């Protein structure tokens, strides 16, 4: 996660794009059947791809919007309990990372 000069989070674009695209059921089906082929279409940084393959919720949570993160793990078939156990190990966002009114 990169914080910008104005204190907002810079997302990992291609990881976000992958998660966004997998909201389509057909795309999620293809991903579950042949993950590596789908991943090859996205220019993910090596460490990001490793986090995806390793289903590393803590690492991925730092890189994408929380809603997309949750969509992704639903799309790949992880149970709610599985996801909750891991997401609760992530650190809370610092105040300057949050949207301010």
């Amino acid at each position: 996660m990169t914080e910008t000069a104005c204190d907002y989070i810079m997302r990992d674009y291609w990881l976000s794009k992958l998660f966004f695209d997998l909201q389509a059921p057909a795309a999620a089906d293809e991903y579950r059947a042949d993950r590596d082929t789908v991943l090859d279409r996205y220019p993910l940084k090596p460490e990001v791809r490793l986090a995806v393959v390793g289903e590393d919720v803590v690492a991925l949570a730092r890189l994408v919007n929380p809603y997309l993160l949750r969509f992704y793990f639903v799309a790949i078939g992880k149970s709610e309990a599985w996801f909750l156990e891991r997401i609760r190990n992530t650190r809370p966002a610092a105040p300057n990372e949050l949207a301010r009114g």
Partner: protein
Amino acid sequence: MASLVGVFASSHAPLMARDWEAVDAARRDAISKTFSELARRIVEAKPDVLIVVSPDHWVNFFLDNLPSICIGVGETHKGPPEPWLQHLPYASISGHPDFALHLARTALDEGFDPSLSHHLELDHGFVIPLWKMGIDPLPPLVPIIVNAIEPPLPSLRRCLAWGDLIRAAIERYPGNLRVAILATGGVSHSIGEHDMGRIDEAFDHDCFEQFRSADREGLLEFLDRRLDAAGNGAAEMRNWLMAHSAAQGKGFELLGYHPYPEWYVGCGFAAWNLGVR
């Protein structure tokens, strides 16, 4: 001119659709009664147009193009893309382009810069409250998407200003039209964050009290101080702020509060008493 005939708010917890049975029968019945009361009031208001203010949950917009505010000006809107909502009777939803474009024109004239869409897809944030209320037929919808999902979000003060603007647009509309507003989302909830599933009931109750009794500055001060800690989903209270200012901050009435941990959301429902018929 048109008239504002009703202002309402409703939570839109997705698990109401995906896992309705997770909540016991007594509490399901309680929230169903709240939806029925909300529906009764909306139907009683006899709106010709229903403005629905909701976020976009990564359906229409992505990081490529992420408007703070988008008005749906289409003749029709597409129903929800979520696979678990395909049984809802909303494959296509009628719009009201004349009023929507009037709203957009008014906004531009007043120094607001909304994005416009001629063909929005309305996700669960829009359709879950409509479905649970069971309003049939639906009046034509003018959707307003407020970015409450991906920072930076529109400021709380700007959302209040948007509510004022919506009211002004209604008052300046040349035709005879009855317009109601439904804000969706909130109250406290956290999705995909470290505290996912936490409901901040203290915040929710305090928030309702602020809507009921605080002036605009007091409400802004409260939300500025407390909103972030109530979970990322609480950012959707921006939509309630728009409703509140459109109602000129008067007559807030809590119709129901259902903090159901099984659905992760402090579900709140409200109406603003405008004193109109």
